[in-house]
């Protein structure tokens, strides 16, 4: 089985030219784009959320415990945790929590003695209402504690974390990336079913050329969809090179897996069914990663979550590169496995 890049290019280019005539395909790409835009509009309204607040420092003190008892709609607003300051700040940056409050040793005693205290607080300014509520609740509690009018001097450090539409954006990007996972098996299987594949197979192009050409088309399509989503949502920000590394690796993964399914599963309906299952399996984690318990934990190991999280961090945070390595290796491994599977399936076809 020889590979001719020229044949790959001829097949890729012909598919690209035709894609503008395929209504189904346009719909496939338009869907995540439209959803991302709608979410963007809906999220323009500021909202108050009972987001977690992390308290560091004197976390056994009476003041901290009193704060912990405050509930909004049955959910604790403040949460005392053991966490390093840098870790807490990173969570804040990523929008996982709404504020970090540092309560120095001796704060409870000082308040009870009626002395003024100084407290450092970092709040997420991308949801300003939540920030204001947290600050005023804090003051109110201090007043109750000490009985004086101005018991507390707050040193507020505003941090802009990602907002909801920014947090959602990577999931739309991943949907666009994965569209080639459902598209490729359908095109390859229908070429086989309609016997247009026979005409290709009697040209000097090998089956490998054809499959690589189709996979390249999948990568082009996935990247194009991602690009459109990022542009219309104004998200060409942050570490774009890293974000695009993730997008391209995701596109390669989806395309090679799609190609494998298309080659291995001969029947059109069966190929569509298998690819839909694979699509859901790869994607579901990114929607459920925030759920508590086992489901949330498992979700964080799915490729969809890794890509979405990688893209999100690259675009909106300053996380160090070491944080990305596991995700990139993981996706790279899936790419390698699906490439290998495709080649095995192709070899079996030849026999």
């Amino acid at each position, binding site marked *: 089985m020889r590979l001719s890049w020229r044949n790959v290019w001829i*097949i890729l280019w*012909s598919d690209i030219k*035709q894609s503008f005539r*395929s209504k189904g395909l346009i719909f496939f790409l338009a869907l995540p784009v439209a959803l991302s835009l709608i979410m963007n509009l809906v999220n323009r309204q500021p909202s108050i959320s009972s987001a977690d607040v992390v308290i560091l420092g004197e976390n056994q003190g009476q003041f901290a415990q009193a704060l912990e008892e405050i509930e909004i709609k049955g959910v604790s607003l403040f949460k005392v945790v053991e966490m390093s300051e840098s870790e807490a700040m990173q969570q804040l940056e990523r929008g996982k929590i709404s504020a970090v409050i540092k309560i120095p040793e001796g704060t409870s005693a000082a308040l009870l003695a009626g002395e003024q205290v100084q407290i450092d607080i970092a709040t997420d300014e991308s949801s300003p209402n939540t920030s204001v509520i947290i600050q005023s609740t804090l003051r109110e509690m201090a007043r109750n504690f000490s009985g004086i009018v101005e018991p507390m001097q707050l040193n507020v450090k505003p941090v802009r974390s990602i907002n909801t539409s920014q947090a959602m954006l990577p999931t739309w990007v991943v949907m666009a990336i994965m569209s080639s996972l459902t598209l490729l098996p359908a095109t390859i299987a229908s070429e086989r079913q309609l016997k247009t594949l026979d*005409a290709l197979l*009697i040209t*000097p192009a090998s089956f490998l050329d054809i499959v690589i050409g189709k996979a390249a088309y999948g990568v082009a399509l996935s990247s194009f969809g991602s690009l459109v989503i990022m542009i219309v949502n104004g998200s060409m920000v942050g570490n774009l090179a890293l974000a695009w590394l993730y997008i391209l690796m995701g596109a390669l993964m989806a395309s090679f897996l799609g190609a494998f399914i298309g080659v291995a599963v001969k029947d059109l309906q069966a190929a569509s069914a298998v690819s839909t299952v694979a699509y859901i399996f790869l994607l579901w984690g990114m929607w459920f990663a925030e759920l508590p318990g086992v489901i949330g934990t498992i979700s964080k190991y799915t490729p969809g979550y890794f890509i979405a999280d990688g893209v999100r961090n690259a675009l909106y945070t300053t996380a160090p590169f070491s944080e990305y390595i596991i995700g990139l290796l993981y996706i790279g491994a899936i790419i390698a496995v699906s490439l290998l599977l495709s080649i095995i399936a192709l070899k079996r076809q030849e026999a």
Partner: protein
Amino acid sequence: MIQVQDLTKTYNGKVQAVKGVSFEVAPGEIFGFLGPNGAGKTTTVRILSGLMDPTSGTATVAGAPIPGDRQQLHRLIGVLFENSYLYETMTGKELLQFFGDLYRQPRKLVDELLELVEMTPKANELIKKYSKGMKQRIAFARALLPQPRVLFLDEPTSGLDPASAVRLREVVRETAAQGTTVFLTTHNMDEADDLCNRVAIINEGVIVAMDSPTALKESFSDRTIAIMMQDGTNNILTLNDPDLNQKMAALIGQGVVKINTVEPSLEDVFIRMTGRGLQ
């Protein structure tokens, strides 16, 4: 140009589609492969065009061994498939250019072929808007695109109106005259008779007769004549009847309108050899 030896094909270990066929086709010859539905014609074409391996037996096509290096074979042959499907979202011209690029042929050839199959006026319309016959003509042009040494045509005129069929046969004849060997399957006996230098009749995976159409008809002729009388009745006489002269003389005395020799058509040969009519 084509040599086939004891070719067999069994599908899924069960259906014996081809049961040991052997034949040779000379360069520039138009060879017809005739047989009823399910006889194994398409199976043979698919094996000889390298789309699947035979279960046993060997062949060479334009020097390329089968089974063997498919890419070598594919530079030498053109195939018109039975029920060829084309990419409907392309125009006729785009389709030929796409395949022309894969065959590394110049764009000029595409225009020439469009002209040859008389599709130039429709070349820039989407294939999904073509009629069945127009699609067949584009598929035929695609088969000629590699400028093949051997051209396989699986039922080339099915779906064509009579005028288009005549035109296509002309092109096949011209192509063969330029040295291309043509292997053609058909259900149309007149077409085979008209076009082919030699035909093989295949039935249930076995070749039951192989010769030139004239020789086949000759061998099946029962040498009869039909004598039509003034009163409209027909008398049939066999030429090897010992009393032929007397019977003729008697009939002529009663007033003969017409004397015809009765030659079997290729269709008669076909039906006798395969034991059934065309389905």
